[in-house]
């Protein structure tokens, strides 16, 4: 299900799949698609997410059958077969995934059979038969994990009570994904845990295969990954802990640390020691710049995860006034909307902001334009800068899509990221 959208944020299912595969070390997607899909899908996410893209293969480096008129009319499985063979011959990957573009999906090429010919020869290769038109980047993220759960992740891997898997942060779709995962990894490592982020530290397909050993799946997202989480539990016995929104700043990050501690029955003293230590680090800095940031009445325009994180930090930890929050990714299930509304509304002291779910840029602009209450700070994406300029409000480029910043490991998440966020909000004008 997709709606007519002005200036959509993100790409099709294929874009989401490509984003995830691109972030796993030495994994090669192979497109059975039209001639532009490799570029388009990479540009949809990575191309608008702080300008970094997969070091392995991305965009025009991705093997592709480039289906033209002939393949549309007569079928493209022969072209796919030689494309796979070439990819295996020259690309030094640990695993290959054959992806389905709209063209292949509509004409109904049998991708699984062709892929299977190679799998039978012992090549590590898997088909993903979800064509581009079936949804957006978010669905692509879940589609890849469903494929991993069905075909890649191994059963009967010995349990490791100190191993946790992190989900909910989509690489190359969330501009801060690297930094956020690194911050989560850093914090959890202090608790003595070993962390599968899957997309940092050079983790690869082997880490995914053995992820069934984990003691806990930690899903940092208010709504994403429900299906795969259930499958992890039923098929591999890995339970899930859902953190219903990104944690930015000491309050929510400490809450996150305590939830993980409880779920894994970690030593309470250790948990509290880490929290105290981290909070001291944050407040040592915050205490050195009192009154440097002017008071703000703010609006946030972002995906649900970041909208929750930004709003709660600015309201709860920094005592700014929330006015309007626009969740700008497509959320279809009413219960997901409820969770998000709860997280954004349930603030410590501040009055809850107005909350809207809008994906269409015209509607987003109208909502900001017509807001009667004063807004002096807008945190949003590159697409939202126009309305911020029109409003003459301060603007922080903090959400996807993000074209005017280069992002390596920067994040606004966790303890340390909240300091970066605060630094960025400083405005000398």
């Amino acid at each position, binding site marked *: 299900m997709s709606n007519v959208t002005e200036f*959509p944020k993100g*790409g099709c299912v294929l874009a989401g799949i490509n984003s995830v595969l691109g972030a796993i070390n030495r994994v090669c997607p192979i497109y059975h698609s039209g001639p532009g899909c490799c570029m*388009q899908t990479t540009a949809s996410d990575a191309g608008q997410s702080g300008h970094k893209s997969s070091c392995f293969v991305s965009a025009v480096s*991705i093997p592709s059958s480039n289906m033209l008129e002939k393949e549309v009319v007569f079928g493209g499985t022969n072209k796919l077969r030689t494309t796979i063979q*070439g990819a295996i011959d*020259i690309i030094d990957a640990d695993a290959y995934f054959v992806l389905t573009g*709209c063209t292949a999906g509509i004409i109904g090429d049998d991708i699984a059979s062709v892929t299977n010919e190679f799998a039978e020869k012992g090549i590590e290769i898997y088909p993903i038969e979800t064509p581009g038109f079936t949804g957006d980047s978010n669905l692509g993220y879940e589609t890849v994990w469903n494929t991993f759960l069905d075909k890649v992740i191994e059963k009967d891997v010995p349990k490791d009570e100190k191993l946790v898997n992190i989900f909910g942060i989509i690489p190359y779709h969330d501009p801060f994904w690297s930094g956020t995962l690194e911050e989560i990894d850093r914090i959890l490592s202090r608790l003595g845990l070993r962390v599968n982020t899957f997309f940092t530290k050079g983790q690869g397909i082997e880490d995914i295969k053995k992820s069934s050993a984990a003691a806990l799946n930690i899903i940092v997202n208010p709504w994403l990954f429900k299906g795969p989480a259930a499958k992890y539990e039923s098929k591999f016995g890995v339970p899930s802990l859902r953190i219903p929104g990104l944690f930015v700043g000491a309050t929510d990050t400490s809450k996150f640390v305590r939830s993980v501690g409880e779920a894994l029955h970690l030593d309470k003293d250790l948990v509290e020691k880490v929290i105290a230590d981290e909070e001291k680090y944050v407040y040592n800095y915050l205490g050195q710049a009192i009154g440097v940031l002017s008071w703000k009445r703010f609006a946030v325009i972002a995906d649900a995860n970041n909208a929750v994180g930004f709003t709660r930090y600015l309201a709860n930890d920094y005592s700014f006034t929330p006015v309007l929050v626009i969740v700008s990714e497509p959320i279809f299930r009413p219960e997901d909307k409820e969770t998000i509304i709860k997280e954004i509304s349930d603030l410590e002291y501040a009055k809850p902001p107005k909350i809207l779910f809008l994906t269409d840029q*015209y509607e987003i602009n109208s909502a900001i334009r017509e807001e009667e209450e004063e807004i002096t700070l807008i945190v949003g994406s590159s697409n939202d800068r126009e309305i911020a300029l029109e409003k003459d409000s301060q603007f922080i480029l903090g959400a996807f899509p993000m074209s005017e910043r280069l992002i390596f490991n920067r994040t606004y998440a966790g303890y340390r990221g909240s300091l970066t966020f605060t630094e960025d909000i400083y405005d000398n004008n």
Partner: protein
Amino acid sequence: MAKVTYSGVRESKPGRLNDLGTTGQKASEDFKKGCLKRADRSFAQGLQCQQINSLAALMSLEDAVFISHSPQGCVGCSIMAVDMYRVGQIHRGIRNVKNPHLIVSNIDQKSVVFGGEKKLREAVEKAVTRYNPKLAFVFASCASGIIGDDIDAICADLQAEYPDTLIIPIHCEGFKSKICASGFDAAFISINKYILKHQKVEKEAGLINLFAPTTVSYADQKEMERMLQLLGAKVNYIPFYSSLEKIKKIPAAEASTSICKVFADEFMKTLYEEYDIPYSHTVMPIGIRNTDKWYRGIAKVIGKEKEVEEIIAKEHERIEPLVKKIRDRLQGKRVFICGGTGRSFAAAALIDDFGMELVGLETPTYDDDAQVDIDYLNGIHKEFVVDIANMQPFEQVNLVNKLKPDAFIGVPEWAAKLGVPTTHVLDGKRPTMGYDGLLFLGNKIADQLENPGFNKKLAAHVKLPYKESWYQEDAFKYIIREGGN
């Protein structure tokens, strides 16, 4: 014989091919003998589809809405044009930078089964009620084409409903062409059919159409306009940062020229045939030789041959001592060049200004136009490899690794990881063209060649995804004769 209407698919031109591995000498000989045949690659990496170019060509028109009748992924690459449009506004001194109005109909499973007409109608309705634009372009996609949505009929129907907005379908279905520049042609065909409508208008003395794609920087635009104004011309710069008014002025011009070889080249032919507008189709004005050639080309069309020679002489006097300084730094260096049709050949001519030696050239298509450039390059350089490829980085790294050039000109991503100093000629935000662009570019190449530390250290730490065995293979191993398309 009835006149064949050009379809917009660049492959429809006889003798034009996209898949070839050869050398400069051999390419020229084979082309003369008629031995160059269509081929294909049994293995390839992703291409740029023509829809990307159709959208990019028009994205900066101020009074238009752009409707992509496609799934959401097909507007991914529009970010490049959107970014150019935004940065272009900043360069033009605009403070409140605007977004272009881009709407995606978002074809989904339901549309695939039942057709996408309803979604397209909704998208057009939104475009009109929100912005009341003068123009609404409807871009086809692979999906809309295959499911059989008749966008021409739907647009015609909607046109009756919304008479104040010109609703213009563009046939840029990705599967129709391997050459992304076809998308430029598709856009211009629709501009002619739906806006200009073959109607002649009153001529405006001294007006010249200057066609430019989005990848031309504002600095370059100003330089091109300055040069044409020196010839006494008024410039209609289109379609980048233009409007319906400026498009409507196209037939009033006395002459046309383009900044890029594959941008509006077919359209300029049409303008000549249908509106009696003579044109100059030469080269991209990068480097002394090409800038001279481009400048003389348009001057001849407007009868300013004498004037142009005076200006060229003056420019040479000014520029040559400065170019010599760069030449002293670059003389004899071996270069590999990769780029689009216009920029690759322009860069190849440019390096002659600096006395550099061409060892490899990667360019998307070979045709009679390319033959002219190859013959020119054959006259200067002994022997160089020619890879007719739309990117295909796997072939590029194989060749660069074997040829070990001193410098690489083109998309830097892969050659950089081989440790070769790299310079990009496609910089839509900074100067590249005309006499002054040459200095900027020359200094950039020389500086990077003299200070290659980043790429060298990068290569020591970052590995390309290819197997070691691939570098030993024939780079053109996957180019096959049978099944060429």
